[in-house]
């Protein structure tokens, strides 16, 4: 059983965070909220999302699992204006999701969850450095790096207590440094890893520009990027595997 009413903005934020990595995903309908975990086809990027039942106007669920085509669902959510409410109801018999937006009714055929790629295990990582920055700073770094290269280095200089971003292109370079006072928080520890800019760009799209984003970094290790949405009732963690430096 699943029946919920949620604001269109919250629904869109939720879907956008996942759709940057995959086209289809499984959604766990737990009794205290929904949970989505997915990994992209190349096993490079991963998303772990939870949205508490409190983020919904009303919420009833008893632990079901559904598979959805994200772009379809996004299109439907796009039909709603900001502030409008979306009503979702699962028909267990037909395995279809009934969606209502102010009189507009849409019946979405679901995907067999078994046919969707397995959900990843959450890797247990012990990352030495942690940085909390504004979403807008990441956006600036990613956009600048994108002009010169297809990969980007994220690092923390423990000694000087600064977070830095490097992008080296064939001819041009981009370098961005943020001191402790520019950052919301910093747990210094030596860290530097190279990442695919394509993925970071996609993930960056999901970061709310006014939100705090927590980055956890290591030496040649994946990065964890965490942020809250829906007024703190939803949380997203992205993980991205590092590029291997080829020489």
């Amino acid at each position, binding site marked *: 059983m699943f029946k919920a009413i949620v604001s269109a903005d919250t629904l869109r934020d939720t879907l956008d965070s996942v759709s940057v990595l995959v086209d289809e995903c499984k959604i766990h309908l737990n009794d205290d909220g929904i949970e989505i975990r997915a990994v992209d086809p190349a096993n490079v990027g991963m998303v772990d999302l939870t949205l508490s039942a409190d983020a919904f106007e009303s919420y009833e669920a008893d632990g079901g699992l559904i598979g959805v085509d994200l772009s379809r669902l996004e299109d439907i959510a796009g039909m709603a204006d900001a502030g409008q409410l979306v009503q979702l109801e699962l028909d267990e018999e037909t395995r279809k999701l009934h969606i209502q937006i102010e009189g507009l009714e849409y019946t979405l055929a679901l995907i067999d969850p078994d046919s969707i790629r397995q959900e990843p295990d959450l*890797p247990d990582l012990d990352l030495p450095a942690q940085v909390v920055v504004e979403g807008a700073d990441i956006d600036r770094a990613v956009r600048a790096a994108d002009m010169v290269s297809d990969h980007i280095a994220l690092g923390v200089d423990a000694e000087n207590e600064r977070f830095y971003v490097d992008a080296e292109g064939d001819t041009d370079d981009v370098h961005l440094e943020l001191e402790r006072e520019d950052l919301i928080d910093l747990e210094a520890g030596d860290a530097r890893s190279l990442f695919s800019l394509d993925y970071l760009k996609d993930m960056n799209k999901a970061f709310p520009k006014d939100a705090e984003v927590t980055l956890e970094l290591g030496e*040649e290790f994946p990065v964890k990027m965490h942020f809250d949405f829906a007024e703190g009732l939803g949380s997203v963690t992205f993980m991205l*595997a*590092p*590029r*291997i430096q080829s020489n």
Partner: protein
Amino acid sequence: MVDWTEKYRPTTLSEVRGNDSARDDLKQWAETWDDHREAVIVHGSPGVGKTSAAHALANDMGWDAIELNASDTRTKDVIERVAGEAAKSGTLGGGTGGRKLVVMDEADNIHGNADRGGARAVTRLVKEATQPMVLIANDYYDMSNALRNACREIEFRDVGKRSIVPVLRDVCRREGITYEDAALSALAQKNAGDLRSAINDLQALAEEHEVLTEDDIVTGERDTTEGIFDFLDDVIKEKGAEESLYAAYDVDETPDDLLNWVEDNVPKDYSGAELADAYGFLVNADKWLGRVRATQDYSYWRYATDNVAAGVAAARREPKGGWTRYGPPSYWSKLGRTKGTRNTRDYVARKIAEQSGCSMATARREVMPFLAAMTHHCKPRELTVAMAAAYDLEEEHVAFVTGSGKDTNKVQDIVADAEASKAEAAVEHSGGAFAGQASVEDVDASESGDTGEDEGDDTDEDVFVDDEEADTKSDDAEDDDMQSGLDEFF
């Protein structure tokens, strides 16, 4: 219902049956990958366990397996995004030290429309990859040379009957099926080489029968395609009319191609009267193909095949033996060799057709021979320049029509002059649209140029007429001289 081939897919390399040495090679490749960092091509017939081995290997090594198979659209973009990123990145669990296995299934099939640019993307990827990659293919030689050179090669051979029977026995035991040994043996025999289809057959049989007996094994065979060289042996040397015809049905070639193959190879074994008879049948076949082309009624194809296969076999009068080196139809290599010339010819014909409003065929048959005669070896020069300008011809086209060398100064000058006269004509026809912009001097210059051009045009026309007259008079001699090389194209 679970597919048994999935259910009993080996989870570790030691469970992969048959192909012990290939299996060991694969393991050794993976264990030493850090030293050589090469990709590997695993190739062999369908159903021998290539994909299973790759996944079992990933499992044994504790690597994640990223698979890109033929059911994904494998365009250049998708390959670069998925396999490319996978092959250049570390893992989520282990960072850059973590390993994963990128498995590219059916790597010999990355071409055609859906996979545009895919084959080249794979080659580049193999060279740039920082993670181990396995390319799986049925036909090693269907992959480009560049790709083969960049990879190691491991061949999986057909799985022998003796290796198939124990697998079937094992599956039966685990599924609780009663069986006769002879039944499994017959099943293995029937699917010689292909372990996967043997297991599929077993599953299908187990659905219907409680106890498997030898009689349950239908001896029908899977469709196979017959190679063209076997077919030539059948038709020319070994088989009678009826059998040859049946053989033709299994060959994956159109009747047009079959005709070319047989036509080129039959004189290597036939001689005298029987060869004449064989060609008689080939002529009939060609007539039927002509009817197909004219009417677009492809049901006539059957009569062409009858003649090519049964007819030629029936024409044989004495037994043939030994081995003959059959080769591909020379018609193809001729088409290949003349491709450039034919393109040039078609370009010229199209330009003429556009200018004079006739069809390309008419331009080729009725205009180009005259043009060739009129401008033989670029004489008279003015006429040749006028022609090049009128039809917008480049060096190679002028060379084609006149028979002069393409790289000679003469031809290049003519084209340059033609360009110049075209440019002047364009200015002239612009009706002074640019006059406002041009300075007084420029206008003067172009006016004087125009006058010169006009005079030139006049002379051109004169020459044209003169030459045509001259041409008609000395028609035979000229014709003979210049058309010897072009004949076959008109």
